[in-house]
Every structure is written in structure tokens, then in C-alpha cells.
């Protein structure tokens, strides 16, 4: 029965018609493509060391349609933030949960594509209303940006429907509030992106329960009496995976205008203050507030001019919002007050002592009779996503307004750049004092052909681009920066905000190069003559996204943790939150007669998938004439049995740890050893019918020479010293040992039996990227032998003592 069910799904997918036509339509929707080339690395520098990279994993983005369909107008913006081609597989889900697999879309590197999606669907004969679209790609989180612009009212203004990711949620609660204009109606779409049914509880203005099947979208429509109610709120709760339910919706005023309902997960809020970046002072503006907590909350509103280091400000008196209540505020008067001071835009901060989960808010600006803009009014992004990569568009009457606000009480520095038409345009580093907003006038610098620090221009013929911003490395606050760009087009009737966070991986730096003390010989692992003094420059990252900043910085101003030079090599240093710092020593042959050692430090903010935002490369001296620490190819190695496996939490007391010492004339610390099969292994214990698969291959593990393999439990127990690597764990698991002891005799098979391997060992030098793995030892014999009472494991003819195990 289950087979039949699954087959039906396959059949539907295969039966999808008009896919080719849709592929053509999507391809044609691409703006004239051009190949963007990455900037070359900084010439004359030493080769970059391999940086810690995150694995490419399967990623899903949900775009929520809230029942809009092929008969409506729908724009899709896709942003490729990868410095390479990115292939996206979209699957469209109808309201009922039925899927329509669409052809893959290939985005060129750094491409921002605007697709008239509904038109493409119509051309392909795909009709109906839709709940959501799943965008699937292999890569890193937030590598693809995506957003819908929906037009629920024909011929009227567009409504932003930002992308929805699993990482947006920490609980199964959602909340939203909104101003209600006259003749207001709302549509709330409850989309279940999971494969299990969920029961959703709605509370707030409406109390009800809704069952939502897998991939189904349930629409809830309400009509409001504007004489009685001026702000609405809805809270959603359910039992199930935290990312199962994606809620979205919109409010319409008669047939004139509509704006989105941006649900958020209160548990994912990073701070109590909420920020709406860059409100226009000339537009009638409505604020809706909802107090989610069981106690009253006091607050006041703080307005600050954008684009000024000493902004003009307006503060409203403190007010109180009762527990579990809504409030609608018209702030037009405050904005007019700012307008009278000559301020065109201001950032609004709601200052409150409520908890970070206490308040949700919405800010809506009436830009025209049929166009309103919903400005995200929310806490800053989580630290690991505290940056942005927004689309820029210069076709038709489109304008762009990127802004970055600092809602913290600590000054910060932001670096920003534009990628467009194959050029990376750098803005000068921008100091953003507390409670100010930096403006990056990309349209003006493009129109005025303003050169950047490297003398480059934003190409005039580029139809689209991308605006990237990121905090300078090691900001001293966990949160506080909020970015937004407003993409405006009167012709397309849209004032869209793009404000989603961005993955820190893409700000990976080789940063900085340090001046060095090469004062003497390196004596012992815990004494280093090197110390950080001044960072002299930045260099490009591996994506070619930034050029050199010809600026000197005193590292002490960049918030680096201070290291005790006498103990920096002991172990990694844990910092607060999601940060981690660690240290490493590289060695090099400096001069002809003596070995000198330089200090390398690495520092990172750990991202969602365990990789690090920032990364320090190898040190070099100012005159750039020291040799990069070397890596000699070992002649051989010696091996030594250390102990039975201790830290392996799958309980493999039957395996043995071996530690290797390289026989080499150089210093290979920091380089990597990787094992492979020189020939297929042989498992003589295995017999047909055994549920234990043959033990006939090495695992292909890698080890860091002269250090601890990060995150590897057994490596914490067996710490390799200078030019050592390991532990190499060898042996059957406990399960097969007992199994073969108990069962081989029943089949007339004898003991002892065992597995033998021919291990191939390669070394990859840490300092020379262009040099691939080199085999230094092939055909290294490994064995594991089970007898009636236990096991013996051997490596290079060195064997563990017999371990009793039955």
C-alpha cells in the first residue's frame, strides 16, 4: 500500500506537463546575462592557506504565496550570493498540498534575477492557487536569496513576501500585528511545509483550531469593522517541528491597497528594542503594537535622522501597553516634526524594558493612494546573520536605498560593497555610531561615476547588482545592526524592503597581516617571540568580493581578544556565545642556518553549520621576505600503539589508538594527513548471512599534524606533538567481535579471523594551496584479528596487546 502511494507521487511528477515551456520562460526571464569575474587575488602575496570550509548541504527556502496564483501578478526575485553558478530546483505546492515540480533554474554568479512568475506559469499552462514554493539547492545556508512580490489587488501595489527558512524559528509560536485601515480585510495563510499533519491553534483576535495537512496551505479570511478595531493581532501555536508551520498573510483596504502580515517567532527575537530602518518622514505612517506578555510594558519611540553621524532626533513620551493587548499609533506628527527639521528619512527605534519576546510591531507607510510600504519593524539579526546581501535594480524606474542602522549603544564599523557587471565597488569603511543609520547611495555613485578606493566604478550598463554589508570583524556587541534596502518602482507599483540576514561564511577574510617580532629562535611550544602589533591591510576573500583596503588599523581597536603569548598554544580558547578563538604555530626556514617561527592566530565566529566567519591567515613580515612556513614531504613515519580507544562514544573498546611520528627534515605541523586504500581490504571473518557488512575499507579520515583535530573526541585524548599525527583508530567494533565469536563455530568456521588493509597515506601542505595531496607512504599494512577471547590490532607491524573481549 505504501508502495502504491509513493508511486502515485512519482507518477504525478513525471506527468507534469509543459515543463519545457516553463523552463524556456524562466530562462527568458533572466536579464541579459553577463559573466561576472571575480577580482584577482592580491598580487605578490603568499598563497593563501586553506580556510575552514563549510560542507555543501541541501538547503530549502519556502516562498509563501498565501493563495495567490497564476491569475494574479507575482514577481520572484532570486539572488545568487555564490561566486559561481547556483542551480535551484523549485517545487510549487498548491493550496491542497499537491506538488508541481518546475524545471531547475541556473543562476549565474552574483546574479539577481527578477521573474514575472505568474506570467511564466500561464505560458506553461499551470493554473491554480498556490500555497508555497520550495526552492531547493545544494550549498550553504542563505547562499540563495529569494523574495516574492504579490499583488492581491489587481492593478494595485505589491506586497512583500520574504523568504522563509528553518533557521528563522526557535519555537512553534508565531505572532503578528497590523494596523487596520478602513474597510480592512485580512487573509492569513497557514502553510505546513512538513510531511506531517499539524493542528494549529489561532489566538489573539480570533480563537480557533485548524488542521493543516502535509504541504497544505489553509487560508483564513476576516473582515474588520474599522469603527471598532484599528489594530489586529494573531498568535499561532501548534505541536510539531519548529519549522513546520510558516504563517504569512496580508491586509487589504477595500480595493485600494494591501500590505503584508509579517509573522515572526517571538522566541527567535534577539532583543527587546525593535527597529524600523529609514522611514520616510513625508508619508502618513501607522504603527501597530502587540504586547505578548502577561504584564504591562512601557515603551517610548525614538526617531533619528539617517545618514548623519550626529542625527536630529525626536523622542515621544513614555507610554504603557497593557498585557496581551494591541495598540495602533499614528506617528505622522513625529515624522512631520522631523520633516520640518529638514530630515527626509529617519530610523524608528521602539525602546522598551519588556523582554525580547514581549512585543511585536509593524510599521506601515502610505506612499500613494494605491501603494503602501510595510517597513520591517523588528529586532536586529542574530549575530551570525548580522549582515546583508540585497538586490539592486536599475531597469525602468527602479531606485535603490540601502541603509544600515546601529541600534546598539556601542559604535560599530561597517564595510559595504556593490557587485555589479563584473565589478566590485567598495565603499569606504563606514563608522556607524550608536543609534545612527548609515546610508549607501548606490544610485548616486553609479549615476555620478564616483570612483571607489581602487578607482573602480559601478558599470552604467549593469541592469542589476548586489549590495553587501557586514560588520567589521569582531564587533563588540552580539547584536545591534539592522540593514534594509528599499527597492522602489512606481511602474511596478512596489516599494519592497529587502532586509533578511546573510550568512557569515561569505565574509571570510584572510585578516589581517600582522607585523611581527622575529626576535629570536622559537624555543619551546609555549614560548612565542611573535606578537600582534598592527594590521596593515585586508586582502580579498576567496570569492573575490573585496579588494584591498589600503588602510592601517591598530588591532587593539578591532576588539580582538588579547592572547597570552606564553600560553597561546595550549588549546583552543572558548569565548562567549557562538565565538571561538584558537591559536596555531607555523614554522618556517627563515634565512639559511636557523629555523625561526612565526605566530599565526585564527579567530572566528561560528556559523550555523560549524564553519567560521573570520579566519586569520599566516603571518608574514612587513618586508614580505620571510618564507612561508614550510612543509616537507616525509620520508616515512614511525608508529606507536597508545591505548585502546577511550573517548569514542559508540563504545569501541575493541579498537586501538596509534600515534605516528613523521620522519622528515622539515616542519609539517599544520599540514594534513589523509588515508586511503592502496588495495581493497579483506575481511576473513565475514560470511554470507552476516548482518555485519564486510570490514574491507579504511574510512578516509584526515588528521592535523602537530595538533588537535577540531571537534574530534579521540584527538583530545591523544594529542599529537610536533610532526606527529593521530590517533589512527584501528579495529573491529564491539558488535562484530562478539558476533563472530558466537556464530562462526555454529557454521563450522574457525577463529581467529580478521581484516587486513593496505593503507595509502598522503600529506597536504597547509601553506601551499596549489600543491595537492602527495603520497608519502603507500601500502601500509593494518590488521585487526578476532580470536575466541578478544582482539589484537596492528599497524605497520606494531600491535596492541591482546584485549580480552567476549
Amino acid at each position: 500500500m505504501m508502495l502504491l502511494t509513493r508511486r502515485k507521487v512519482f507518477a504525478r511528477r513525471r506527468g507534469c506537463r509543459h515543463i519545457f515551456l516553463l523552463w524556456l520562460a524562466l530562462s527568458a526571464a533572466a536579464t541579459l546575462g553577463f559573466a561576472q569575474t571575480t577580482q584577482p587575488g592580491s598580487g605578490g602575496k603568499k598563497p593563501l592557506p586553506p580556510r575552514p570550509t563549510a560542507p555543501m548541504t541541501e538547503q530549502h527556502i519556502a516562498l509563501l504565496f498565501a493563495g495567490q496564483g497564476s491569475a494574479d501578478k507575482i514577481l520572484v526575485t532570486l539572488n545568487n550570493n555564490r561566486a559561481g553558478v547556483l542551480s535551484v530546483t523549485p517545487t510549487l505546492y498548491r493550496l491542497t498540498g499537491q506538488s508541481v515540480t518546475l524545471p531547475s533554474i541556473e543562476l549565474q554568479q552574483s546574479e539577481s534575477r527578477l521573474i514575472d512568475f505568474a506570467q511564466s506559469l500561464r505560458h506553461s499552462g499551470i493554473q491554480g492557487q498556490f500555497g508555497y514554493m520550495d526552492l531547493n539547492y545544494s550549498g550553504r545556508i542563505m547562499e540563495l536569496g529569494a523574495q516574492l512580490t504579490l499583488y492581491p489587488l489587481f492593478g494595485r501595489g505589491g506586497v512583500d513576501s520574504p523568504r522563509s527558512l528553518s533557521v528563522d524559528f526557535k519555537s512553534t509560536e508565531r505572532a503578528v500585528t497590523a494596523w487596520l485601515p478602513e474597510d480592512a480585510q485580512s487573509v492569513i495563510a497557514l502553510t505546513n511545509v512538513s510531511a506531517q499533519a499539524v493542528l494549529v491553534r489561532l489566538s489573539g483576535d480570533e480563537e480557533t483550531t485548524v488542521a493543516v495537512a502535509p504541504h497544505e496551505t489553509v487560508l483564513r479570511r476576516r473582515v474588520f469593522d474599522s469603527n471598532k478595531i484599528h489594530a489586529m493581532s494573531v498568535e499561532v501555536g501548534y505541536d510539531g517541528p519548529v519549522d513546520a508551520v510558516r504563517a504569512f498573510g496580508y491586509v487589504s483596504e477595500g480595493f485600494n491597497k494591501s500590505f503584508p502580515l509579517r509573522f515572526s517567532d517571538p522566541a527567535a527575537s534577539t532583543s527587546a528594542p525593535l527597529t524600523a530602518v529609514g522611514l520616510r518622514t513625508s508619508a502618513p505612517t501607522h504603527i501597530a503594537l502587540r504586547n505578548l506578555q502577561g504584564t504591562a510594558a512601557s515603551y517610548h519611540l525614538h526617531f533619528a535622522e539617517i545618514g548623519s553621524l550626529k542625527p536630529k532626533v525626536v523622542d515621544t513620551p513614555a507610554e504603557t501597553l497593557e498585557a496581551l493587548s494591541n495598540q495602533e499609533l499614528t506617528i505622522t506628527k513625529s515624522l512631520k516634526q522631523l520633516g520640518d527639521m529638514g530630515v527626509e528619512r529617519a530610523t524608528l527605534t521602539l525602546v522598551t524594558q519588556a523582554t525580547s519576546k514581549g512585543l511585536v510591531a509593524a510599521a506601515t507607510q502610505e506612499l500613494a493612494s494605491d501603494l503602501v510600504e510595510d517597513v520591517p519593524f523588528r529586532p536586529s539579526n542574530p549575530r551570525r546573520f548580522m549582515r546583508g546581501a540585497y538586490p539592486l535594480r536599475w531597469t525602468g524606474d527602479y531606485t535603490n536605498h540601502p541603509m544600515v542602522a546601529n541600534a546598539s549603544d556601542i559604535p560599530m564599523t561597517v564595510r559595504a560593497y556593490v557587485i555589479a557587471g563584473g565589478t566590485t565597488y567598495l565603499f569606504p569603511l563606514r563608522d556607524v555610531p550608536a543609534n545612527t543609520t548609515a546610508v549607501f547611495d548606490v544610485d548616486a555613485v553609479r549615476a555620478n561615476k564616483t570612483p571607489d578606493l581602487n578607482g573602480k566604478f559601478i558599470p552604467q550598463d549593469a541592469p542589476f547588482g548586489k549590495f553587501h554589508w557586514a560588520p567589521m570583524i569582531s564587533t563588540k556587541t552580539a547584536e545591534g545592526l539592522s540593514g534594509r534596502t528599499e527597492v522602489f518602482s512606481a511602474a511596478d507599483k512596489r516599494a519592497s524592503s529587502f532586509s533578511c540576514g546573510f550568512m557569515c561564511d561569505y565574509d571570510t577574510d584572510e585578516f589581517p597581516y600582522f607585523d611581527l617580532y622575529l626576535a629570536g629562535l622559537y624555543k619551546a611550544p609555549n614560548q612565542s617571540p611573535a606578537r600582534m602589533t598592527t594590521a596593515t591591510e585586508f586582502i580579498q576573500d576567496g570569492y573575490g568580493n573585496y579588494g584591498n583596503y589600503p588602510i592601517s588599523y591598530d588591532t587593539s581597536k578591532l576588539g580582538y581578544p588579547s592572547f597570552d603569548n606564553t600560553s597561546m598554544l595550549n588549546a583552543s580558547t572558548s569565548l562567549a556565545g557562538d565565538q571561538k578563538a584558537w591559536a596555531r604555530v607555523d614554522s618556517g626556514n627563515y634565512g639559511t642556518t636557523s629555523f625561526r617561527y612565526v605566530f599565526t592566530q585564527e579567530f572566528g565566529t561560528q556559523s550555523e553549520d560549524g564553519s567560521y566567519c573570520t579566519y586569520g591567515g599566516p603571518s608574514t613580515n612587513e618586508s614580505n621576505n620571510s618564507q612561508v612556513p614550510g612543509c616537507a614531504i616525509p620520508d616515512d613515519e614511525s608508529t606507536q600503539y597508545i591505548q585502546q580507544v577511550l573517548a569514542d562514544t559508540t563504545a569501541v573498546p575493541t579498537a586501538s589508538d596509534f600515534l605516528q611520528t613523521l620522519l622528515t627534515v622539515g616542519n609539517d605541523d599544520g599540514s594534513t594527513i589523509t588515508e586511503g586504500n592502496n588495495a581493497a581490504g579483506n575481511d576473513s571473518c565475514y560470511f554470507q548471512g552476516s548482518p555485519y557488512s564486510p570490514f574491507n575499507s579504511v574510512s578516509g579520515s584526515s588528521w592535523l599534524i602537530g595538533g588537535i583535530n577540531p571537534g574530534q573526541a579521540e584527538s583530545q585524548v591523544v594529542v599529537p606533538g610536533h610532526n606527529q599525527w593521530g590517533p589512527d583508530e584501528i579495529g573491529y567494533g564491539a558488535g562484530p567481535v562478539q558476533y563472530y565469536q558466537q556464530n562462526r563455530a555454529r557454521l563450522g568456521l574457525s577463529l581467529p579471523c580478521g581484516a587486513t588493509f593496505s593503507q595509502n597515506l598522503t600529506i597536504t601542505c597547509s601553506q601551499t594551496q596549489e600543491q595537492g595531496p602527495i603520497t608519502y607512504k603507500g601500502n601500509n599494512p593494518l590488521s585487526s584479528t578476532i580470536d575466541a577471547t578478544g582482539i589484537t590490532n596492528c599497524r605497520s607491524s606494531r600491535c596492541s596487546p591482546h584485549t580480552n573481549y567476549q
Partner: protein
Amino acid sequence: MKHRIMSLFLFLQTLPTLCQVRPASLQAAPDGQDALVLTVRSNYPIRDSVRYLNENYGWLISYEDPIYPDVEVEDISIPQWKKAHPGERGFLTPIFSQVRFRITKPSGSKGEQEKILGELVDQFNRLGRQDTFIVIPKPQNRGVVVGSVNGREALQAAVVGPETRIRTEAEELRLLLEGCSARTQIPLVAGTIIANRNLTLPPRKAVVPCRDALLAVAIQGGANLVYQILEDVNNKTYVVNIGPSKVIVQQSQ
């Protein structure tokens, strides 16, 4: 050809006097340009066919045994053992069978894995045995062939909850074996794990099926790793093996 089969048959018949373990074999013969005939002699004909496709066509298909019913299990312990150990259990294993499948020859085309595996299990399911198989496609060109009896699978619809810690492969495997065993009431034990067990896994954000979580362990451990869950009929446990779909050899000397 007839002679070869006959001689093999005779050879198999002589085995019990030495050992009742019968060697498995799989022969693949072209049938026209576009088809293959797999002749499988094994206790695990579907598993061995999947393994053949993995090894020869670079597929990444995982496998789950059904919970074998008594009628599809045989005792192959040698008479000498039984005589010397009266009253003790012998050695139970899924029945040895010979099955011939005719499948489309893989050509590397998109979507062919699902189609060909479907052909394979359809033919097996028509044998009238209690154990049947289904194919579950998975992302990244992967899939799982899942055995069941009367609709009951070893992993059922078991799920594991979110896990926020960064775990090594070894820790994750232990957590999964414990968590999934508790859900299925079928003990899952670690089998042959040929993976870098010290690699770390990212946090698991949501409740996910055990199957997907196991697949994630395999994927994280190496690009070519798959899992096989085989029933230890004697101990009533399920053995989770993780290893390469094909042993890769890079001969250097």
C-alpha cells in the same frame, strides 16, 4: 550456460557437508542493448542487487532489511554443532534464494535510479514472499530501498528530535541508535562503521525521521557512504552498517 548452472548447482549441494554457508553470487548479463538480467543467489537478493548497482554505476542507495518472518528464516548451523550443543540455538539466517531480475540497463540518465529500482522491487514483490520492498528517493541523487512485511518496516515512521549540540559522527550514531530503538521498539546496534567518526555534524533543527537522520550521518561521513540495516535474526536486533557504496582504491605503489 546450462552446464555452468548445473555444475554450480551440484557444488552448492555438496556444501552442507563442510559448511552450510552458501556463497552468494550475482551475475549480470546484457539482454539486448537496453536491459540487464541479474541472476542473484543470496540470502539478500535485493541487497546484493543494490550493492551491484552501487558498485558498478556509482549509485548511492541505502538499504533496510525487512523484519523477516519465521517462514523466511532457516537454520544453517552445521550438524556437528547441533549435535555437540543440544538445546542451544543454531544459526538463523534469511533463506537462501535464487532470483532473476530483468532491469533497464543504467545509462546515467536523470531519474533512472528510481525507475530501475522500481523494476527491481516490483519483480521481487511479485514472487509471493511475505517480505516486500519499496523505493524511497532521497535528495542528492540518493535513495533507500526499504523492506517490509505486512507493511511493517524496521524503522517504521520513527523520528528523532532536534539536537542543538555539535556532535561527532560517533556521538550522533549513538544518539540515533538509542533514540530510534526507543521509538521502534526494535534494538538497533552499531555494525561495521567505515566512516570518519570524528567528523562533526551541524545541529539538527527539527524532528526528522530516523531514516533521514541516518542518511545524514552517512552523507556527513563521506560523499560515497551509504547505510545498510540488516536484521540479526539470531539476536533479534537490527545492525546499522555505514560504509562506502564502493571501495575506492588509489594504488600508489
